């Protein structure tokens, strides 16, 4: 049939329509197999924790586990807070005022994961090295954090992350 060879034909339409439906079908079949690797409902259900900061006395630090990661809770001494506030913002690789780092200045709460490649910095135990700025020291590749958990020296690009948290009572915080 000569005329079917000119321009588009119904067969071309069928080809394209079939391929398009097939592609949509394939894509929607693939999605469940991709999404199954995302956090499951029971994992998401454990995504927030509560912690009583009254158990941490001045000068002491406690590590709690949140979403599989360590969270550092440190009850800072007035001296440590003073040191953190005294630093000019311009001296910081990732500038952030100390006031933005904690809801209550005495209780510093940061995620204890080095922003370089994910090691857990030292400095929670009294016997740990705390680096040149008295906060934390990451032994993996030598990052120094100050008493507000801000990066001061070393390869890490960012300050230790402050997680979302709020006080549900005077002393109890809910993280996440």
């Amino acid at each position: 049939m000569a005329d079917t060879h000119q321009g588009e034909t119904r067969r071309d339409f069928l080809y394209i329509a079939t391929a398009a439906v097939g592609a949509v079908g394939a894509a929607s079949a693939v999605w469940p197999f991709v999404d199954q690797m995302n956090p499951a409902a029971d994992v998401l259900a454990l995504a927030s924790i509560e912690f009583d900061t009254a158990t941490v006395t001045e000068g002491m630090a406690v590590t709690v586990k949140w979403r599989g990661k360590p969270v550092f809770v440190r009850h800072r001494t007035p001296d440590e807070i003073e040191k953190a506030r005294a630093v000019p913002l311009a001296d910081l690789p990732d500038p952030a005022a100390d006031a933005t780092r904690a809801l209550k200045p005495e209780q510093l709460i940061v995620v204890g994961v080095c922003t370089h490649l994910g090691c857990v910095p030292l400095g929670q135990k009294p016997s740990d090295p705390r680096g040149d700025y008295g906060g934390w020291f990451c032994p993996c590749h030598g990052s120094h954090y100050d008493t507000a958990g801000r990066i001061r020296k070393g390869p890490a690009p960012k300050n230790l992350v402050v997680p979302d948290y709020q006080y549900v009572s005077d002393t109890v915080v809910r993280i996440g």
Partner: protein
Amino acid sequence: MAAKFENSIVRWIDHRLPIFTFMHHELHEYPTPKNLNYWWNFGSLAGIALVIMLISGITLAMHYTPHVDYAFDSVERIMRDVNYGWLIRYIHMNGASFFFIVVYIHIFRGLYFGSYKAPRELLWMLGVVIMLLMMATAFMGYVLPWGQMSFWGATVITNLFSAIPVVGESIVTWLWGGFAVDNPTLNRFFSLHYLLPFVIIGVVVLHLVALHRFGSNNPLGVDIKSAKDQIPFHPYYTVKDAFGLGVFLIVFSAVVFFAPNFFGEPDNYIPANPLVTPAHIVPEWYFLPFYAILRSIPDKLGGVLFMFGSIAVLFILPWLDRSPVRSGQFRPIFKIFFWILVVDVVALTYFGGKPAEGWYVIGSRFATAYYFIHFLLVLPLLSIFETPRQLPKSISEPVLGGGAGLAGAATAPRENDR
């Protein structure tokens, strides 16, 4: 020989790694009889079913824990918590059933059209090997959720080996890795359940190499005689296979979404209890004919031998049916017995699912007897006494009318490709 490719990158690669030449050869030049009907769709469907099983199985293994204390709970977690876990599990569960449906149809297609006959004996025997591997895989997979049916199915089937004289008991202990089905058993079953599908892939590759040696058989059972009898696989059969796949996926999805536990046993949603056997234990439906044969023999060793024998006769089938005519269409008496066999296997499936008592036992004994009579007596005798109908001279003859089929084949223009 080497096909010409327009794309220069394709040409560059093909010169060094002739993968495109290979594909062109196997898909385009590969001569396919032009008269294949829809029964010939089931081979490629089986291949797709295998891929579906692999993908869903590997994803399930990302969430499954092979330990007696956690297996059941990890499966429930897949059903409730893992994103789309319910869908992936139902695909895998029902995929197994559909895989067997497809392969059983594929086998009966071969039985009817005589596809097991020379020169396709090895192709057929590799198929039987695939079937055995599929059964082993399905059996071990069913144990993994560690429900009541998992546990007692595993116990009963592994105990089959205790029928072997002298060494039977030691073999069973060896299979279990203990004195009962327990954690070591579950661990090794998981390992093997993951392994065997890849062994199946290997045998399928051999199956296809053997297939492409002589090409597909066809409904008439006569060989390709000239270019007129054949068409390129692509696009003709790729389109036909794709259409069949569409129909298959519709039916499959209907079951997965609307009746996902249709093939399942409710008892398997009860966690395994090694101290209590469920009142009525049955294997998955695709094992029922073999289970019926096992139970119809009132002797432990005998039952096991007959059960494995029912598969062994398939292995030697090419030498039991000596009739030179392949297709059942031209064998008037064979055709009748073929359908009796189909009914017989359906009956075995039915009896296998019923309790082993009263009338059911009698029925399954008759059905078992006929199964073996069919292969060991009827087929050999038919090869001698049956007078087949006149075969067409070529695949084209019945279409084009008397005699015209053979000569001058080259003059016939091939159908337009587009």
